[in-house]
């Protein structure tokens, strides 16, 4: 059972994430209008926003501690926020700044925060094996930390995920796999590429429990995730969860979704997990004033993070040569250094 306080926590994280994505969307378009040019403006590169996925990040991470590991895929912001990744440094990273989480080297698909054991990878399903490894480390060290790997519905056909199910299962590792099913993999609807509607069905063949949460009701997610994470923490092994979420925006910024039926876009916008959790809070007697307050606090935090990030210095060109190794060799391996920029 999810408590009112937990509902508050989730609500706050969800509105933070939603507002964050909306603000990033605006920031990203700076310099890219009227003609969309991916390499123009302060935030270049791809940007995959997670509006409509918030319930999954909030519902799962509700049960996680800083010492638990999370790996996220290319659409990571809502998970990072719920996991407690430093919002300012994360934003600075997305803006490519020197004080960003990764000193401007990673960007939005590659956010790393060692303080809360968060990492993401832009390669489909490839966060699964490292999550299994973190769980393996926890088990070997006899801690009760767990690991959670997030992935998309399109990722369940990738070997890296499928192999991970077996490795986790055969060693009974404390790891939970969370499939965020938003019905699409870029332009490909699920039924065109995947043989099962319910991704959690894959679990049976790997002898671990599988469960699907059929809506992005944050409470339902939190309950299912709570069980799965407790199971892992208690030493009872891995679980595969699938959560129905919705893609409220294009796959990445600049995606006009010409391939997507209008009705599907509309539906995704109507099914709003944030309104639903707000109703839940109201039904628990939480007043609108308090909801407003939470929302304002969240917005302020996001606004602060963004303005802080924008004030941060860019890395200097020479920094490109740093961090290839933690322990750089005395002999310069990379002595071919390439001075001339354009």
């Amino acid at each position, binding site marked *: 059972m999810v408590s009112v306080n937990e509902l508050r926590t989730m609500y706050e994280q969800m509105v933070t994430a939603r507002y964050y994505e909306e603000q990033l969307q605006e920031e990203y378009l700076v310099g890219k209008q009227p003609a969309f040019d991916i390499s123009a403006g302060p935030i270049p590169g791809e940007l995959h926003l997670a509006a409509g996925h918030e319930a999954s990040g909030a519902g799962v991470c509700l049960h996680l501690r800083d010492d638990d590991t999370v790996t996220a895929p290319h659409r990571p912001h809502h998970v990072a926020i719920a996991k407690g990744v430093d919002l300012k440094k994360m934003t600075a990273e997305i803006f490519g700044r020197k004080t960003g989480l990764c000193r401007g080297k990673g*960007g939005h698909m590659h956010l790393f925060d060692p303080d809360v054991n968060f990492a993401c990878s832009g390669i489909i399903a490839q966060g699964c094996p490292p999550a299994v490894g973190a769980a393996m480390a926890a088990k070997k060290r006899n801690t009760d930390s767990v690991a959670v790997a997030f992935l998309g519905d399109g990722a369940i056909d990738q070997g890296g995920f499928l192999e991970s199910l077996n490795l986790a299962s055969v060693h009974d590792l404390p790891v939970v796999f969370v499939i965020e099913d938003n019905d699409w993999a870029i332009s490909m609807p699920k039924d065109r590429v995947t043989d099962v509607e319910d991704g959690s069905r894959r679990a049976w063949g790997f002898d671990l429990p599988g469960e699907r949460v059929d809506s992005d009701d944050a409470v339902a997610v939190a309950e299912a995730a709570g069980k799965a994470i407790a199971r892992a923490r208690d030493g009872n092994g891995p679980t595969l969860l699938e959560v129905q979420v919705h893609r409220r925006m294009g796959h990445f910024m600049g995606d006009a979704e010409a391939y997507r039926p209008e009705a599907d876009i509309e539906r995704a916008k109507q099914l709003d997990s944030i309104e639903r959790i707000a109703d839940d809070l109201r039904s628990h007697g939480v007043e609108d004033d308090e909801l407003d307050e939470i929302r304002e606090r969240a917005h302020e935090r996001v606004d602060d993070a963004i303005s802080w990030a924008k004030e941060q210095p860019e890395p200097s060109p020479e920094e490109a040569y740093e961090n290839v190794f933690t322990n750089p060799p005395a002999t310069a391996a990379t002595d071919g250094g390439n001075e*001339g920029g354009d």
Partner: protein
Amino acid sequence: MATESRDVTEATETERELTMSRAMVEAIAWEMRNDEDVFLMGEDVADYGGIFSSTTGLLDEFGRDRVMDVPISETAYLGAAVGAAQAGMRPIAELMFVDFFGVAMDQIYNNMAKNTYMSGGSFSVPMVLTTAVGGTYNDAGQHSQTLYGTFAHLPGMKVVVPSTAYDAKGLMHSAIRDDDPVVYMFHKRLMGLGWMPSPSGPKTAVPKEDYTIPFGEADIKRPGDDVTVVTLGLHVHRALDAASRLEDDGIDAEVVDLRTLVPLDTDTILDSVRKTGKLLVVDEDYQSFGVTGEIIARAAEGALDDLSAVKRLAIPDVPIPYARPLEDEVIPGTEGIAETIRELHE
């Protein structure tokens, strides 16, 4: 939200000048019309038309059976392309970004590239692996590589890197008709996408009819007497820019566009180097153990006595960083190329 769909290429066709993307697609469509065995597989190649417009419009003409969206299972579908090719079809399979090769490399190099040899020639693998390469738009280390050297190093694949629309079309016709596996690496920045503007060079006049460009023939994109610049892909255009900047200084650089890495046209490189005595290799792949080393080695093996200076510019053995000042630092730029040519000329 979005101001323009990513899958729209430039629409105007001034006197048959085509973008590289249009030229590629034109060749694919021609071959699909003329050979029932040609079909296409890839992620988002159907309705989307390829993230980098490498398949725009093909679904409409050829339908879902011949233009197939596939699961995000590169091992399975690239391996399936190998199997279909061995069965006599001529699949074109797209790996969305070359950076993803690591999830499917076994199929690529242990099956696709080797089965012809290991079967003693009794099997052929007539397939084309198309893939998008390159940086310059700050997509960071898992989405910005070219990996030219990685593919060229492993035997059994022909490796093609077009730099203009004209070359792109001719090389695609050759690739599809070739009985061997061809890795066709197109640079995103050259495709002529509305949302990722190209430099002016890659959009060229392109004949309407089909034509082939033989593999293993480098193209001298600019003749010159003073310094040889060997390069490929995007950097053909940066080298050309650098060369024209140097004209006023009386430096006459020759720009050699390799066009194919396997086979490699050593003769053209040697002829040029024998003439100029000075070699600069410019590459968007990692510097060490890659393309630049190989070109310099071939020059040293074949023309050591004629060689008075060699230099190279490539990614300095660091993963490609995200932030603009960092990415700009590691990808060779026009300025840096011009400077280096000048140094060589001194």
